[in-house]
């Protein structure tokens, strides 16, 4: 069998790229090792309940009728209507550090006013920083890594404010410890503070199912349980792939969302690789607690709370199995839906140590998941009313879970620290999309697939 394009991974980026290619008449096949679609943003069913894997919120919110920004861009490119994603905006979120709480919603003015009120000495510098962010071109594919902390320190002199601003952006997208690349910072700042959070009533599965439906209607092929074991290399080109079951598929080009280091591993040949192919090592443990009431009933009505228990913010690979100093509390209930979700739930996420979780024997692993579930809840109770009496069911995932279902080395969630913005690899017809290319979040990952498909696989030149 021979294709114009093979796409590795049926996550948001791969499916979006697939739609673009199929729409323009390419023979395209998406290969997914897992039994279901979604990749890092998948969904599953456990004891009769639907759960999302990665989704706290869709960032990059734009209300209906909007024309700018990444959400509208991907809707146009994929020929979707705004209603197809059924986004309900957030109720309101906050960043909580000792002595300060900065609240934000999908109106940037509100956030700016919070900063002016709580950090009056810093507001001018903050506005200058926003001007720089507004002027930055994220579409420049040739830029190098620039330290965000250094750029911020030129404008803001209070390290506490710098840490508070960075906390949600790092938690929701930084692949590197302590600091982040300024281009990534701009992408995240816009998507979280300037555009904001929303969620489909049915969770990420609605978006994934609509993508798959469109892709298939356009004639695209999707193979599940079809992991790529090896890329077939001829000189500086890829000629096809070998699947886990030994089957060979040929293709004019290959677009991989598997990760940069992960993709090169499949090539099975020695190629000169620079820093961009070093995998990330930041990963998380997440606890999901299903509740017998809506969180608002016990006094928690915020969508997402980013917390940190000291003025310093240590965003890094945890030295302990889980870093209990900071975390994210997400309530999928607290979005402005037309009707409440059937059940309440609270998701709490914290930095973790991948090696620890990978190396545990199975029995101990289950025990440790239970132990750290309780520790994470205890830690979060400093920032949310005690909801433990309302818990009906729990689930916990770790770096090991992420590795198992997505294949990402270290169970890494936000990919490699160095992004490959133009999607190129040492092989002429092998390209990358997804977390290691550089756009982040639900909307960002779709934009990643679209951009790389447009740039390299559809370019009419």
């Amino acid at each position, binding site marked *: 069998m021979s294709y114009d394009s093979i796409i590795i991974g049926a996550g948001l980026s791969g499916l979006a790229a697939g739609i673009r290619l199929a729409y*323009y*008449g390419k023979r395209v096949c998406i290969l997914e090792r897992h039994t279901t679609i979604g990749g890092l943003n998948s969904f599953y069913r456990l004891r009769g309940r639907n759960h999302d894997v990665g989704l706290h919120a869709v960032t990059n919110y734009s209300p209906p*009728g909007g*024309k700018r920004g990444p959400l*509208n*861009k991907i809707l*146009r490119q994929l*020929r979707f*209507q705004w209603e197809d994603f059924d986004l309900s905006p957030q109720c309101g979120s906050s960043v909580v550090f000792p002595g300060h709480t900065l609240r934000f919603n999908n109106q940037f003015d509100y956030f700016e006013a919070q900063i002016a009120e709580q950090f009056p000495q810093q507001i001018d510098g903050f506005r200058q920083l926003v001007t720089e962010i507004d002027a930055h071109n994220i579409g420049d594919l040739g830029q190098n890594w620039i330290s965000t902390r250094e750029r911020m320190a030129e404008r803001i002199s209070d390290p506490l404010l710098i840490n508070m601003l960075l906390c949600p952006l790092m938690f929701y997208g930084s692949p590197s410890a302590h600091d982040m690349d300024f281009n990534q910072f701009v992408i995240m700042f816009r998507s979280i503070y300037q555009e904001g959070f929303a969620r489909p009533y049915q969770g990420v599965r609605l978006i994934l199912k609509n993508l798959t439906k469109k892709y298939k209607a356009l004639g695209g092929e999707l193979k599940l349980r079809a992991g790529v074991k090896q890329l077939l290399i001829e000189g500086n080109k890829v000629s096809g792939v070998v699947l886990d079951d030994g089957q060979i598929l040929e293709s004019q080009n290959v677009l991989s969302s598997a990760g940069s280091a992960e993709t090169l591993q499949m090539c099975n040949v020695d190629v000169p690789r620079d820093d961009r192919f070093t995998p990330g090592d930041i990963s998380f443990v997440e606890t999901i607690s299903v509740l017998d009431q809506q969180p608002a009933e016990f006094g928690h009505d915020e969508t997402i709370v980013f917390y940190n228990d000291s003025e310093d913010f240590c965003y890094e690979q945890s030295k302990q199995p889980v870093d209990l100093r900071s975390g994210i509390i997400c309530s999928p209930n607290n979005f402005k839906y037309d009707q409440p979700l059937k059940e309440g739930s609270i998701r709490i996420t914290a930095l973790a140590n991948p090696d620890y979780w990978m190396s545990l024997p199975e029995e101990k692993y289950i025990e440790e998941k239970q132990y750290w579930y309780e520790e994470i809840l205890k830690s979060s109770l400093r920032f949310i009313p005690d909801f433990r009496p309302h818990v009906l069911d729990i689930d916990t995932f770790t770096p090991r879970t992420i590795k198992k279902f997505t294949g990402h080395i270290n169970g890494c969630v936000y990919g490699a620290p160095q992004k490959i913005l133009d999607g190129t690899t040492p092989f002429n017809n092998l390209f990358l999309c997804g977390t290691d290319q550089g756009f982040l979040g639900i909307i960002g990952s779709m934009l990643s697939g679209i951009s790389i498909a447009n740039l390299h696989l559809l370019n*009419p030149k």
Partner: protein
Amino acid sequence: MAPEQIRSVILDILARIAPDEDLSELDDSIPFREQMELDSMDFLDIVMELRKLYRVQIPEEDYGELVTMDSTVTYLTPLLKDAESTV
């Protein structure tokens, strides 16, 4: 295709790319960019839609011809003179 048919083909493509835009008020002599929120990705889409529908190749150096409806129709008229409209 006659120029008037080419115009409706372009309108049809624009409606597909930007379903939320009101195209009834489109002024043919003013750049699309000034009337609609179109970026370079969208322009590439116009080119690719034309290629998909009519197998017409528009080289990158000619993208500048697609600025307004008038200039687009003028540019496409000789290229599409033998094509059958799909609209």
